[in-house]
């Protein structure tokens, strides 16, 4: 099957800045894929290149088998992009904007049923005839997603779709996006909310300084850090010296101001040793919690050390 996205040896320079350094990436059809990385890692540059908003210095990009530059019309038909910024046309209402957007892709009145469905699923029914200018930030975000979907593209790219969005809307968006994914749409997501990527995405690429430093299934990435963590609340007492080698680094929240200590466990059996040491030091444990490594740990580990 043709991959949804295929990127080969992609380089992008902005003057002296080498923003993307030879990216190779294949995303299969139907995947829910996350692109993670700190600010300036090159995620948005990569998305803008896919969307044809930027031109590559070197390398190839294809959407559903269509070269983004040579077969740009086919590639753009296959792609919907939700931009990061809340941009809108102040002259029109939501339904008009969606009809125009679909029209740019050659779709007419026969597409109205799909537009109605998108409007309803994104909770925009009451606002369909409201001018874009008058929508709240959350509603504008929904309208942006609707605009990207107006021509029913098989591949949908969401660039930070839940930035500044309340919990209720976030849930609604994800339910809808998950439904699209179940129906066969390929979803590519960039987000700063790592728990979203962990919950939703089957595969993740982590970027740093224009390079992909990790590309694997979410589970394999989580397995990279087999360690578990033990969080102890000791009140006013300090951690015995014998346990200090187990403390997580400060960057990963080793010691909290609230008197909480987080220790890294190579094996669960170490818990007995830790509790024995605390008993010997006559320290009363106020609270204790065993924590699995999450994507944030993997992210910090990879981005901090790669």
């Amino acid at each position, binding site marked *: 099957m043709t991959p949804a996205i295929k990127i080969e040896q992609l380089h992008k320079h902005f003057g002296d800045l080498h923003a993307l350094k030879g990216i190779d990436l294949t995303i299969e059809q139907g995947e829910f894929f996350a692109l993670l990385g700190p600010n300036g890692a090159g995620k948005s540059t990569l998305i803008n290149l896919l969307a044809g908003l930027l*031109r590559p210095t070197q390398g190839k990009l294809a959407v559903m088998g269509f070269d983004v530059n040579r077969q740009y019309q086919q590639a753009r038909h296959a792609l919907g992009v939700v931009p990061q910024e809340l*941009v809108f*046309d102040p002259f*029109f209402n939501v339904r008009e904007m969606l009809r125009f957007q679909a029209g*740019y892709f050659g779709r007419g009145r026969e597409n109205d049923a799909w537009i109605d469905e998108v409007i309803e699923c994104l909770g925009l029914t009451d606002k369909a005839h409201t001018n874009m200018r008058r929508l709240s930030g959350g509603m504008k975000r929904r309208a942006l997603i609707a605009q990207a979907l107006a021509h029913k593209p*098989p591949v949908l790219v969401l660039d930070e779709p839940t930035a500044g969005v309340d919990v209720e809307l976030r849930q609604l968006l994800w339910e809808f996006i998950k439904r699209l994914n179940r129906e066969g749409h390929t979803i590519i997501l960039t987000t700063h909310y790592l728990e979203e990527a962990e919950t939703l995405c089957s595969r993740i690429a982590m970027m740093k300084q224009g390079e992909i430093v990790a590309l694997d299934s979410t589970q394999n990435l989580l397995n990279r850090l087999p360690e578990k963590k033990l969080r102890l609340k000791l009140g006013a007492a300090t951690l015995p010296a014998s346990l200090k080698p187990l403390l997580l680094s400060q960057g990963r929240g080793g010691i909290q101001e609230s008197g909480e200590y987080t220790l890294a466990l190579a094996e669960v059996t170490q818990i007995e040793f830790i509790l024995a040491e605390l008993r010997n030091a006559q320290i009363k444990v106020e609270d204790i919690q065993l924590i699995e490594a999450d994507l944030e740990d993997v992210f910090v580990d990879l981005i901090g050390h790669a």
Partner: protein
Amino acid sequence: MSFNFRRFQLNSLRAPWTLFKKELLRFWRVSFQTVAAPVMTALLYLLIFSHVLEAHVQVYPGVGYTAFLIPGLMMMSLLQNAFANSSSSLIQSKVMGNIVFLLLTPLSYLELFLAFLAASIIRGLVVGLSIYLVAMLFIDLPITHPWLILAFAVLGSGLLGAFGVIAGIWAEKFDQMAAFQNFIIMPLTFLSGVFYSIHSLPPFWQQVSHLNPFFYMIDGFRYGFFGKGDIAPEISLSVVAISFFTISWLTLSLLKSGYKLRG
């Protein structure tokens, strides 16, 4: 998920047609500003200049100054509004950021150009025609060569519409666009013979006027009404047509290169 691109190719004309419709609706939604205001301004010019000069100036034999002025004002407003349509749409979209919705579409550079151009021509013609209709309430204006009037109106508004696309691509803020309008478009229109015949100018300034393409648009357009002009209409039409195709070619080249639109 199945994806059939060929199905959409059949509707390819719908894409530029949609952009054209959107651009029309954009100016029509604010028609007080885009149509009524320029008509009002032209009428004020007409009232003031005709009141002051009607009794003192006769540019062509048998043509009063007020009648002489009307085609000039029509063409001036038509050109300025054709320019404003494409340039303001692009600069607003760039500043607001919503130009991204256009750049993400499969519209080709030629389709983009034609849609912006057609909408500019329509706005120019609507403003020009409105001024004509209102002016008809005060004075009876002859129409000697209607096809010539139409040709100059369409080519002139097309030329300025294309120029507006260039300005909209180049400018990054409203200030730069205002400079374009106030330091290029405005002087060229005011110094093109809207209010006078270039034969009333000293020989040096007559020569300078011949370098101004706006002069040919106004003189040729006026010829269509009175059958009289400062130069032969064939020359004016040739200059305007060559200018239109040159500016259109330049605009298409900029759009194709992605200059200031695609990095």
